[in-house]
């Protein structure tokens, strides 16, 4: 009896061992999450986040491989992202997000045919993704020189998807079917009258149809419209997720901490982030908080470093000038910074900031010229935002100074008056522009064109 029991136990143990060995083998054989191609490819904070995601993906629950794939994708490791998303699809083929992200990543890898396949599957699983998937699939087909397939995708997109409708009309115009594009463009412009790309495309269509007046009119309208169309769907999708991983997540969270009662904590956190990895926008945010905290010298240092490392822009120079002024720097030096900013952007705010310095150091004529420049800059802003009545007043004031630089003010005054259907006053303005600058091409053209009618 004993012998039988022992035999049975040995048999049981043997079966158990074989089974467990098989399970362990299977378990060990599960795919290891891909690693970064080399050490030091990301900052320490992001590396920590990747470490966390690797551990999760080694013993995955639903969504863990997707999360790792997304992290790889938003940090630009597209081959590794693709590997993760293939695994995510294998484990959870019912997840639309897995297919969708796989489609995005394959698009970035230039694997357009595979990308389109994944996107179609994503759209099947989640109808909410349909328009975006068709749009990216259309871009994939265009990359493959298959405009017919692209058009077929675009025809399936809802009329409310502006980028999709725009791309469809773009294709029609550029495949010699401008008359087919016209009604769609008219309808889009009726709904989105402030989007300049639509007028620009309609101008191309009108030109192709021989309607040069409409083409010219649309191009003139383009100058006064602020809005554009977000056509980079893949870049946008990747950008939206970047705040969920690594250092970008920490920067995002630090920004959310930024309340008046919490400034010291935010400053500490932003300084810690800059220690980990230099980011110009973090330096800029920190400088602005330092100004709020009445620490202008610290802001000056940050902004000086930023302009050196990332190049100067009008905005960074304005902030630097203001910080230097707050910190009590030499007024001449502050003025030079604003002057430099004005080289980067003709901006009424910069002119306003320069005025007190000019008043104390220069002649009344210089003050008047700066004021005229300020009015002109504000006029340009109003003109580009289609606030024509305001622009007229500003250009009139600017043009009252007979300085050669104000030739442009007269030209734009002419443009505004023409739009307000005051042709004689407009022609007078163009003529004044040419008196100040006889070689002003656009004024001469306008006078040629409208002076005859």
């Amino acid at each position, binding site marked *: 009896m*004993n*012998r039988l*029991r*022992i035999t049975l*136990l040995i048999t049981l*143990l043997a079966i158990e*061992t074989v089974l*467990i060995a098989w*399970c362990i083998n299977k378990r*060990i054989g599960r*795919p*290891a*999450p*891909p690693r970064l191609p080399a050490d030091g490819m990301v900052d320490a904070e992001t590396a920590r986040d990747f470490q966390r995601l690797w551990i999760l993906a*080694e013993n995955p629950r639903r969504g863990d491989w997707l999360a790792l794939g997304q992290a790889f994708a*938003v940090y*630009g*490791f597209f*081959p590794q992202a*693709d*590997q993760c998303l*293939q695994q995510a699809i294998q484990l959870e083929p019912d997840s639309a997000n897995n297919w969708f992200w796989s489609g995005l990543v394959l698009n*970035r*890898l*230039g694997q357009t045919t595979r990308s389109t396949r994944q996107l179609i599957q994503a759209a099947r699983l989640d109808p909410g993704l349909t328009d975006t998937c068709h749009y990216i699939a259309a871009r994939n087909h*265009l*990359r493959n020189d298959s*405009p017919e397939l*692209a058009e077929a995708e675009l025809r399936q997109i809802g009329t409310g998807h502006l980028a999709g409708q725009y791309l469809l009309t*773009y*294709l029609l115009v*550029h495949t010699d079917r401008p008359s087919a594009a016209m009604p769609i463009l008219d309808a889009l412009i009726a709904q989105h009258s402030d989007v300049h790309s639509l007028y*620009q*495309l309609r101008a191309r269509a009108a030109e192709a149809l021989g309607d040069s007046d409409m083409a010219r009119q649309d*191009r003139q309208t*383009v*100058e006064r419209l602020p809005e*554009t169309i977000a056509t*980079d769907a*893949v*870049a946008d999708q*990747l950008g939206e997720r970047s705040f969920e991983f690594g250092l970008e997540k920490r920067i995002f969270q630090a920004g959310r901490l930024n309340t008046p009662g919490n400034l010291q904590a935010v400053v500490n956190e932003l300084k810690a982030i800059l220690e980990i990895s230099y980011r110009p926008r973090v330096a800029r945010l920190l400088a602005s908080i330092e100004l709020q905290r009445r620490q202008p010298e610290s802001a000056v240092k940050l902004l000086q470093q930023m302009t*050196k*490392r990332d*190049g100067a*822009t*009008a905005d960074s120079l304005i902030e630097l000038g203001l910080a230097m002024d707050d910190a009590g720097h030499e007024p001449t030096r502050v003025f030079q910074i604003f002057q*430099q900013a004005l*080289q*980067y*952007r*003709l901006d009424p705010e910069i002119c306003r900031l320069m005025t007190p310095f000019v008043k104390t150091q220069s002649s009344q004529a210089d003050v008047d010229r700066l004021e005229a420049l300020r009015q002109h800059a504000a006029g*340009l802003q109003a003109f*580009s935002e289609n606030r024509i009545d305001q622009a007229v007043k500003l250009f009139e004031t600017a043009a009252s100074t007979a300085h050669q630089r104000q030739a*442009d003010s007269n030209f734009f005054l002419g443009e505004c008056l023409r739009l307000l259907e005051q042709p004689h006053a407009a022609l007078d303005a163009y003529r004044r522009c040419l008196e100040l600058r*006889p*070689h*002003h091409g656009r004024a*001469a*053209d306008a006078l040629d064109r409208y002076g005859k009618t």
Partner: protein
Amino acid sequence: MLTSRRYIELALVGLVIAVPLATTIAWPLLPAQGSLDPPVNGSSIYPPSTLPLQSLRLDPPSPVPARFSHVQIVDLDGDLQPEILACDALANRLVAYHRTDDNTWTEHTISSDMATPAHATVVDIDADGDLDILVAILGNAFPDDSHVGRVLLLERNGDRYDRHVLLEATRRIADIQAGDLDGDGDIDLAVAEFGYARGRILWLENLGQRHFRDHQLLFAPGTINVPIADLDNDGDLDIVANVTQDDEEIWAFENLGHGRFQKRRLHKWLNFDIGGSGLITADLDQDGDTDLLVTVGDNLEYAYTYPQPYHGCFWFENNGEWSFQIHRISHLGGAHAASVADLDGDGDNDVVLVSMFNDWRRNDTASLVWLENDGQQQFTHSQIASQPTHLVTVATGDLNRDGRPDIVAGGWHVIPPFRRLGGVNAWLSHRSHDNSGGDRK
């Protein structure tokens, strides 16, 4: 008393229980050792070049990633010793690199305080016998539709350059080229007003006394190059333009004389993403007319980039009568600029390409590539360099006066990864490896 059999029995029972228990406890700790499918590799890597070139960094090393928008090889001061002229868009200055007698290079700032210089054109604009410099002022390296651009003239007067603004209140200016466009004997200009969402192509008529009247040739944003050449062999200068924003198109403006131009669209790409990045003129096939070389590979809309299969270089073969046959000659990922020279001295024109957006996370991807011409415009790629990365501009010329072309290229590092950095680099030919025509045709 337990018998030995009983012990064995108990031990076996213990094992039957312990083995699965231990396995359960150890289960989460078991390492994953399986592998996924191998990763996709879309990067451009070529066999190493056999050209005897020696790499040299000219700008002083800096921890800050450089941004050089344009380099060229030119004898600025007429001493028959060519210099390198470079637009430093980070420090906002124009610099020249001179070779000294002891074969070292020195940097000299020609002009500073210019907001993001994009391109410099060297020409004797006032016909006084020395070379002036036209600088295309972008105003902002990043998307911006405001009036920040300028056409700047640095007029050479003795040892100094006097600064004049020839055109202002424009959007971002990416390129200026010079030539007598209206046949009146003075130098006019072709101007690419890149802008962002709005932009134009202009020609500026020289009225004398540094006054120029602007004429619009095309309303289109995103023009990056406007080279001037006699494309139709009729004796006057035409303008070509590379439009790369809403539309991806190559335009020509045929000179009809007396300042009149007829626009001709030479090519359009329906691929919205193709990323036009450069256009130069050259007689690649040496048949006596001017061909075009167009690079595509811009990816600046992405926070992180990756080379694409449609990137590369096209040769627009001029067949006369405004007919161009388009040949793809390269698939280099992220291709951004081209230069033409007979690098191997075999009598035909080779092409040098640089890449801004190869897969820089690998160590072996190409940033500088030689396309060796077999004489029939069939090209074999070889890799001259994989560093520095992010090259956007390239020029060829005989820098060390050994009778063979050297190469200079500039790096523009704005998108990670910031690895294998470089500003202005030269690859100088050296005769020690010259095999005296052993592999020359």
